[in-house]
């Protein structure tokens, strides 16, 4: 019995982190129809900033989150201004999607190799006094870093929910998502809305990076591994369905923990791929949506 509750506990902790990883990707995809293939790379970059602050000044990784948010927000603004905003002129959504994939695929190579030069290709992780400790609750063990990651994921997801659902800016974002042209006719500055959403999306990737570097490890080219997870969660949640992302992450975490129990840890990604293909065959619109997608 112990192993089952332990697996479920592990699945929930990892799943919340999976949700956190996906938030930025889902925001960019949902609002602007940009598929950010470099999302994993930005996650790793956020992790490196936190790692750097930790080794330099000994700052607790969770306290460095505000700094990471600010830095990554600015990087997000620059990325949007320089590389993504010209795509808005393209005639169709399909063109915009394809070009954004190509461009962010190029960004991967730029940022990956810059990180290799700056931080060497070694695998890095933050080893704080609480790393590796665990707390026992109800007879199951929870790792401290996992619990902290869970807490951060929930706080960030709730904050994003409030920003999108309850503020004026959120209203603008939702309007621009539904119909950018009509929104701009109503006097909403769509470009500014997009700009700030991009900043938020990249900042969210940075926060995910902090959680990863403190409970896992990062290396300059490990971004694709996290990107893959984010893709699967996004498909589970349904494209553009931002509020379903954290629940979808929890589902993936639980499914994966169960699958790993059966086939072994080295095949974690293969389990994710199988889940991905099964979802695409049976529920391509995501788990949380009734509407069917138009087939092409």
């Amino acid at each position, binding site marked *: 019995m112990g192993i089952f509750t332990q697996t479920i506990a592990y699945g929930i902790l990892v799943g919340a982190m999976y949700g956190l990883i996906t938030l930025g990707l889902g925001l960019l995809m949902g609002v602007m129809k940009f*598929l950010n293939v470099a999302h994993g790379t930005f996650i790793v970059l956020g992790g490196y900033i936190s790692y750097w602050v930790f080794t330099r000044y000994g700052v607790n990784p969770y306290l460095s989150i505000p700094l990471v948010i600010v830095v990554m927000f600015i990087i997000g603004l620059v990325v949007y201004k320089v590389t993504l905003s010209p795509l808005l002129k393209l005639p169709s959504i399909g063109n915009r999607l394809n070009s954004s994939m190509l461009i962010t*695929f*190029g960004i991967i190579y730029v940022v990956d190799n810059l990180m290799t030069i700056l931080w060497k290709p070694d695998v890095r992780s933050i080893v704080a006094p609480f790393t590796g400790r665990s707390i026992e609750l109800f007879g199951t063990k929870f790792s401290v870093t996992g619990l902290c990651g869970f807490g951060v994921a929930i706080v960030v997801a709730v904050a994003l929910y409030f920003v999108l659902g309850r503020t004026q800016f959120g209203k603008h974002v939702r309007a621009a998502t539904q119909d950018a042209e009509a929104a701009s006719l109503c006097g909403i500055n769509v470009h500014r809305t997009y700009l700030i959403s991009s900043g938020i999306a990249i900042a969210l990737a940075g926060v995910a990076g902090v959680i990863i570097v403190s409970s896992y490890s990062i290396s300059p080219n490990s971004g694709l591994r996290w990107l893959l997870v984010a893709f699967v969660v996004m498909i589970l949640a349904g494209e553009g369905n931002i509020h379903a992302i954290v629940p979808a992450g929890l589902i993936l975490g639980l499914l994966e923990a169960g699958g790993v129990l059966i086939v072994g840890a080295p095949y974690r990604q293969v389990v994710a791929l199988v889940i991905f293909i099964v979802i695409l065959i049976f529920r391509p619109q995501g788990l949380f949506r009734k509407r069917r*997608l138009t087939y092409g």
Partner: protein
Amino acid sequence: MKIDLRSILVLAVIGACFIVLPLAIDLGSSTMNILILLFVYIILSQSWNLLGGFTGQINLGFAAFFGCGVLLTHLLWKSGVPIYLAIAVGGLSAALLAGVIGLPTLHLRGAYFAIGTIALAEALRILVGNVFPSSLSLPGTYASNFNVFPRYYLGFGIAVLTMISVYLLVKSKFGLAMVCVRDDEEASQVTGINTFKTKFIALLVSAFLAGLAGGVYSFNRFYFHHISAVFEPIWTFEPLMAVVIGGSGTLIGPVMGSIFLVVLSEIFAEILGEAHLIIFGVLLIPVVLYSPSGLVGWIDWLKKVIGGVGKPLVSEER
């Protein structure tokens, strides 16, 4: 289909050069290896272009098909299967793999195909890394009677065959359907094109050619330190880069892009090491944004400028 005699003559002369030159002059093994790599890149970029440039489906997991060809060719060759058969089987297995990912994803519009292929390549990379953790090498007898010529001519032959088949495919009715799907999927469906079938067949052909490229690459190597390296995203990035820089949706673009890429990486890799990829990435972004027709577009522009010299400024072109 109009056949232009002059361009056929030019192509024949270039082809003859590639055939005769290595026999006439001793180019040295490093030059020969670069040329073989160039052929591999030409095959890869042509097949990426068939799907990405002509059909409009961005394949971000192209390395999966290439790596599948490399791995299977290597294993079959090692177990005593004749090399040419092994390469063909490698290509077919890549096409099979493409079917597995294409069936669920190509039915849907949007980013699903790109996401599916990138997930496939990444999962395969990890799976292969787990199954073959140590280095792979062929027995010494294979290396002792090494001869670069069959590898060179095989690479050249498959590159030429690839170009001819892509040309014929694009010029056919099916090619028209591919371009239609790229330009407007809904409209082409309305006119009676089976869009899924078009995309799926283009994917299968593209994956088969990528598998053949893997076979050529595998034929030229006896030792793989980590076989999972052939599944790394760099093998997606470089063909994609060659197509975009050269000019996507054209026949000659991928060839020019491959030459550009191989020459540049030979120059930069010596000076900068791995960091030369930064330059490629930085180069890719403005080309996608501001000059989507790539090198082909620049050459057209140059032709117009040079052809325009001495003519009245206001042309009667309409």
